[in-house]
């Protein structure tokens, strides 16, 4: 079991990242909070020895995305907090618009887009995190990219 000190450090270091991944996947504050909380609890109780900070980060993301999927599976309808999310971010209009477009994409595209374009993971790394084949990740990135552009151009340009 990890001690409180290391948990605090992990929360400070990875909390924002896991929260935004959850928000993008779940589009719901309360559920995102649950997902991140459960991730850190699992981190505290059952995290393996990490070979490196990158390993630790990838592990947390994997657990968090799995938790998000569990939450998505459990619920058929959920409150979509997209409007509130967009209102709350201290953003310029451009950020608001592209985030709005992102949140409209199907979940499977959102997560790969976030991992690649925001967290900087490569295709093979994303495939390991999500448990998908690299070809699937590439496809989703490609399609997600074109969908995002299409939405963004259609709505905001």
């Amino acid at each position, binding site marked *: 079991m990890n001690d*409180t000190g290391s*948990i605090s450090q992990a929360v400070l270091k990875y909390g924002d990242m896991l929260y935004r991944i959850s928000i993008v996947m779940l589009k719901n504050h309360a559920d995102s909070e649950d997902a991140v*909380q459960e991730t850190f609890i699992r981190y505290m109780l059952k995290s393996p020895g990490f070979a490196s900070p990158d390993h630790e980060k990838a592990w947390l993301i994997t657990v968090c995305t799995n938790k998000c999927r569990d939450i998505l599976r*459990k619920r058929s309808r959920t409150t979509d907090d997209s409007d509130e999310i967009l209102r709350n971010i201290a953003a310029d209009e451009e950020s608001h618009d592209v985030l709005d477009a992102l949140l409209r994409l199907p979940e499977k595209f959102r997560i790969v887009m976030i991992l690649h374009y925001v967290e900087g993971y490569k295709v093979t790394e994303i495939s390991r995190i999500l448990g998908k084949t690299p070809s699937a990740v590439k496809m989703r990135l490609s399609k997600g990219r074109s969908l995002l552009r299409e939405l963004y151009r259609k709505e905001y340009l």
Partner: protein
Amino acid sequence: MTENKLSNAVTRIKMPEETQQKILKKCSEYQSSDVTDNEYSQHVSGVEMAKNIHFRKLSSVAAVLALTAGGIGLTVHIARNSPKDTNHFASSDVELTEEIIITDSIDSTKPTTVEDILDPTENPSGISLFIDFEELFTSGRTIKYTLGDKPMDDLTAHECRLLDEFFTLAIENGELTADVSSSYVLPMPTMTFVSDNGTEKPACLYIYHDDCLYVRDDSGAEAIYRYNSGRLAAAVETVFRNGSVADDDACYPPFGNFAKMSDKPYHAILGVDGEETIEREIDGKTLHHAFYGYNWAACETDMRVESSGMVIRITIEKPDGYETVAIDENGFVTWYLNSDHSVKCYQLPDNLAFSEELYPIFFDN
């Protein structure tokens, strides 16, 4: 670039301070109470992934996987003993108890093992099976898949794997997507592949994988059909010719352009996405389709897809007759085929399925 804007935008999302404090407090509580991981797991309610789980989430929409016989008529009878349950799947340990019997209504002596069905050398006709996924997931009953007179328990490991691949689907947000660990073959009407010099030859291999349909002919030339806008009704988005690869950002030709490449009628590939109804005009014919579940290929002439609630009927009209497949709300499926319009279904040998040799673009170098 939109992607740069994306990064800038998303990184503005921060975890609220109170959320952070709540998490730290909860972790501290667990720390002080010395809760073990097992106890925590029991405490956490929800769906945990079980080993070898084949069936996952439910959709409020019925998901129907089509498995139809090529060249022969098959009727799938799904015996139901209880009314539909709208509760979502809550346990990964569900036992599916319903027996699905596939009977060949035309030739009961025809081999119907999965292997036989999918092996093009043994049986060039494919076979498809309709299953109402929502019923399966919500009923909590055991399903026994019987192909012909071979119960599932007697299927070989390979046959089980093939079936597993058919039925391993991830359903997320009401949208059916293929589990990308499974590559399986959709039964497709005969399709024509048009090469660069205009030569037409029948495409002999179809693979569906992660929203893409791959079509390949004997020469190795390939085409990939993707869904347009991530929703229904595919357009030809990327064409691979003789191993060459199109740029991801290429401007994909709209569907009509492909039709112009051939004098033959085009082939429309329809996908499904939850309950969405799509109206699409293709070559002057309007297609209406509301579909629950899976991807279809329709072809040629006039195709009409109608649905009324849970009843889905696809009619393909041809000069010499018509083909109809109907799925009613009880999951009964009837597929009528013209003899010259067989549905083909092929399985790649395992060692070739999505190998780097076949599809180098999809693999990091």
